[in-house]
């Protein structure tokens, strides 16, 4: 067999999931629109004072990104589980871990990457200075893959359960906390005139750890769900 590391299977899964999402564009866009709406609600609730908004912008953008990423988790495995595709993936000769990484990668491309591109634009509404904008985009670019990776654990554990959507929030949100702290902290640090490198390094460390352990935990959870 030529595909020992499952790289062909990996890219196949990514291409399949992205193509499926493109066939139903509204479904794919919902988390992104949710992100935009949630972020725009805060100035309406808090009041349009620019100093306050500038101060809370990193936290708001990050929390909204967390929620948007979580909202789309049910798309990760649920449909494949319902129509039997997931069973075939588990039975396929390619390593399941690589297939999981492929699914997580596709989830990030569809729900994380658009947020990375959109967030600086929305941050302008909150009057964030230009120096913070790039750090915000970088922190989201490092942090949102972690959200997809951790979310995959929650999604696979709650596969096919009643009340799965709320349960996923209960399982996944506590685990998102380090990402939120370091992500929003990096933007805050720049705003306070400090260096953001320490926060971004910690965030990258979390990404490396999650990138190694989350696919393992997800494969175990998937096998349990399909038993």
């Amino acid at each position, binding site marked *: 067999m030529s595909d020992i590391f499952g790289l062909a299977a990996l890219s196949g899964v990514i291409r399949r999931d992205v193509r499926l999402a493109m066939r139903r564009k509204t479904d794919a866009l919902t988390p992104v629109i949710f992100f935009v709406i949630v972020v725009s609600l805060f100035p309406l609730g808090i009041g349009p004072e620019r100093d306050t908004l500038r101060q809370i912008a990193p936290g708001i953008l990050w929390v909204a990104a967390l929620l948007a990423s979580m909202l789309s988790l049910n798309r990760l495995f649920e449909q494949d589980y319902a129509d039997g595709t997931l069973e075939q993936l588990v039975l396929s000769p390619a390593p399941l871990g690589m297939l999981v990484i492929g699914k997580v990668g596709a989830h990030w491309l569809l729900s994380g990457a658009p947020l990375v591109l959109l967030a600086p634009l929305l941050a302008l509404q909150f009057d964030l200075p230009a120096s913070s904008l790039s750090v915000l985009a970088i922190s989201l670019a490092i942090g949102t893959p972690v959200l997809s990776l951790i979310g995959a*654990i929650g999604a696979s*554990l709650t596969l096919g*359960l009643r009340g799965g959507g709320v349960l996923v929030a*209960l*399982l996944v949100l*506590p685990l998102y906390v380090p990402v939120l702290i370091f992500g929003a902290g990096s933007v805050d640090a720049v705003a306070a005139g400090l260096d953001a490198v320490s926060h971004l390094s910690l965030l990258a460390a979390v990404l490396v750890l999650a990138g190694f352990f989350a696919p393992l935990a997800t494969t*175990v959870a998937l096998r*349990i769900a399909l038993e």
Partner: protein
Amino acid sequence: MINWFKYASPRAFFPLAGRMIPWFGAGAVLLAIAGLYVGFFVAPTDAQQGEGYRIIFVHVPASWMSMFIYLVMAFWAAVGLAFNSRLSAMMASALAPTGAMFTFLSLWTGALWGKPMWGTWWVWDARLTSELILLFLYMGFMALQSAIDEPRRADKAGAVLALVGVVNIPIIYFSVQWWNTLHQGASVSLTRAPSMATLMLAGMLLMALASWMYTVAVALMRVRCIVLERERHASWLEEVSEVKR
């Protein structure tokens, strides 16, 4: 040669647990009486904090237990996942409610202590926040297990979640060293002399032992209930004197 796996079967464990519960229960009561007596009547008043410090006799043991129980729970969950032993998984789910109770108690007593000492019920300090996350992890574990109807899948899914959440424990434990936060550093450590009066330490250790014995007794009681519930169709239950009709 000891047969380690003898008590891994619910049938052998059920009567053993029944015999152990009174001992641990009585031990917990006696140690708690001794600990509370030392803590509230014998230990000296603190020079800086006055009488208000006495809440540590509940707060510190509760915080220790909240982390310790999670580790024990994750250990049993891992054993259950690795050896596919039913009783280990039952043990893990029996420990979770007690762990959540101690986590809540630790946060609550901490808030009661924080109001006179720090002037606030709550601060978003690293240790407090990570302890709060621990409470959420316990809740997630229990919610996940109760959402799955099939017991074996509930055991395994809960085990994966418990093992994923275990990263939080070192974060709580070392938070006061890693971050410079409002919560004071540890007063008790294994490597150096404790920075507190011997009587205070004695009261705290007595209370910690009492909490540990209480946990064992309650967890065993709960595990017996789980065994009864899951094995209700098993024929060996007919021979158990407590169940006999």
